């Protein structure tokens, strides 16, 4: 049932990406009009507005969630494409291991960046 499991999570990750990326688009591109999560004057991606969002736990969690699902969705898709190349089973196993390691590495790096940005924003808010 491995195929079913990976496929189901691939699809679920796609749905989460649509939602989280939609939120990102809404904030970044409609920010000038709606001022949603961009209370300060200027563009949604100005330093002040970015620090405001980074200081909120909701956004830190959302960043990490987006990173996780995008990595899984993208790397699973890449793995599927690579498997189309008529590879021997040993090569397929090696590709899977490499992609898992790359995914975990990028996830740790991105999560660390999101948590650090959150800490910096909080420290800045305290003065």
């Amino acid at each position, binding site marked *: 049932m*491995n195929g*079913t*499991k990976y496929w189901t999570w691939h*699809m679920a990750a796609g749905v989460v990406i649509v939602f989280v990326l939609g939120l990102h688009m809404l904030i970044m591109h409609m920010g000038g009009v709606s001022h949603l999560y961009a209370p300060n004057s200027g563009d949604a991606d100005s330093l002040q507005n970015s620090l405001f969002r980074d200081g909120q736990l909701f956004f830190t969690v959302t960043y990490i969630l987006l990173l996780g699902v995008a990595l899984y969705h993208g790397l699973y898709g890449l793995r599927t494409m690579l498997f189309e190349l008529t590879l021997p089973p040993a090569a397929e196993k090696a590709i899977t291991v490499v992609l898992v390691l790359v995914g975990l590495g990028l996830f740790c790096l991105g999560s660390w960046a999101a948590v650090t940005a959150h800490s910096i924003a909080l420290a800045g808010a305290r003065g």
Partner: protein
Amino acid sequence: MPETSTRQINFHVTRYNPETDRAPYGKTYAIPVREGMTVLDGLHYIKDNLDSTLAWRYSCRMGICGSCGMLLNGRPGLACNTQILHIADANLAVGPLPNFEIIRDLVPDLFTMFDKHRSLQPYILRNDEAEINDVAGEFYQSPEQLESYLQFTYCIKCGCCMGACPTLATDARYLGPMPLTAAQRYNSDSRDEGRPARNGLTGASTGAFRCHYAGECSRACPKGVDPARAIQFLKRRLVLDYLHLASRRTGCKKLHGPGQGKPLPDIAPAPKRTVGP
């Protein structure tokens, strides 16, 4: 009977004898073709008049047995129900089905397909062993329940879908459209309780999710079966089973004797028996 005009068609036939040839090669035969002649008729003409060493597989000559699946002008099809003039003006390329080893000339080795087919337990599985061993009685099945799997029963295991499948061309471990369609046929049969037993294979990495829905299998099928659709049904059911969202179905019960079934409305009762108790 009126005389019909004949036309010369060049048959470019793939020849290969693994015992003597290093690789398949092509040989051309000029055949007088009249309207209505099938590719199988053309091959018989070659065998009878031009080259008695040509080998191919056939049996029923009427699109039922599935023996004569081969590659006709680049598309898999049955030699017996494909008319030459429907697919060729002057040249016709005839080769063995792709994605199989060649036994000789136009004879593919279908054992890999049948091994995969057998591994999916393509027969009705029931949980109750005693019931299986009791041959008496029959199952009640509504027309709607029959409809849910009927089209998949028309598969004649000719291998045309397997020859057309681009995924199978790149991954020989993929189960392929024919075995997966057979699995769907039995999974959706109201008498069957074997879906959980088949899910292990159909849901594996070489199973239904390896299909990328190219749809060539459905285009190639000479019997109008839609294997691509069957595989999509399989995928949906596998995901629902994995998420525990599928309705738990128990196989329909076996009936022992008259009067146990639910009579349909508006159907007159059977006449009284005239003999015996």
